[in-house]
């Protein structure tokens, strides 16, 4: 067998052809990478997904497939979706905190000499009248996420 086989062909115990769809994205130096994606997606599906993409997008696709596979192995019930849920909660919490802080600032602007107890009452009124933007948490039922709004692919070190 050719010692220069990619990680996928080594794993699948087959000859690694010159035009192997996997070899640019699954080098033999990182066997874990292919074994993850194979476990979750299967070699055939990964091959089909990569084949259907233009060559210049395949590296990103292989990267995100690996990331999703890792998430699913770490969290077999929710996978990546668990991270999305956590991020939505973080956004929710941050928006509430921000609204609270902005209410505090607004109260100070209104009356800088307010006593602490009066200040709390005023802040409560300001918060009640200016609710923070609430993130819609029923995203699981929404299939309308517009991925064209994306800025940049995920920094892979975030996952670790």
């Amino acid at each position, binding site marked *: 067998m050719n010692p220069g086989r990619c990680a996928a062909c080594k794993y699948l115990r087959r000859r690694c052809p010159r035009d192997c769809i996997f070899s640019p994205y699954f080098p033999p130096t990182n066997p874990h990478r292919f074994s993850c994606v194979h476990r979750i*997606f299967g070699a055939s599906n990964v091959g089909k997904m990569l084949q259907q993409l233009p060559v210049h997008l395949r590296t990103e696709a292989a990267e995100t497939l690996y990331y*999703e596979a890792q998430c699913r192995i770490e969290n*077999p*019930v929710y996978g990546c*979706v*668990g991270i999305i849920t956590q*991020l939505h909660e973080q956004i929710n919490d941050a928006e509430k905190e921000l609204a609270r802080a902005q209410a505090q600032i607004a109260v*100070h602007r209104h009356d800088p000499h307010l006593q602490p107890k009066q200040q709390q009452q005023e802040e409560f009124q300001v918060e009640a009248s200016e609710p923070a933007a609430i993130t819609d948490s029923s995203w699981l039922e929404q299939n309308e996420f517009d*991925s064209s709004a994306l800025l940049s692919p995920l920094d892979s070190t975030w996952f670790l």
Partner: protein
Amino acid sequence: MGSGHSPCASCKLLRRRCTKDCTFAPYFPSDDPHKFAIVHKVFGASNINKMLQELPVHQRADAVSSLVYEANARVRDPVYGCVGAISYLQNQVSQLQMQLAVAQAEILCIQMQQDQPPMLPPSMEAISDHDLIDNDKSIFYENNMIPQYLNYSSSNSNNVIHDSLKRESFFGHDMHVS
């Protein structure tokens, strides 16, 4: 199929007999063939079966929901899939944290200003220049005490708040500057 119950969506697609203890049947009813079709396309029936078998029964429904979500995301965006959503949300979190840090710094500034004892007793604030003897007046102006203090406590704080409100309006908040 011999028992009379209709095969689940997965067994229909895979063209096989749907047994009583079919792993897929509770989660892929026959009236929603698209649901199984999409997870099969991305993950494959065999992998889904393995994943479900490895989970306790009470967690399988959630697992199927998340797999369906991921599969839909991957079909809509074959390059980034779910990871695109994560990236987008992370950016949102960063922006909000930045806004929060700015607001909290502002509150700290305001609190620090309020904690500072006034350099003049309140009765002195009403005294106009004409009431001061020239000597006394010259001491204050030479040392630049009153104008500097007043600038810091009134106009500076207004500038800080005004600038931060400008930033907030950049991020889409409507705040009225008085």
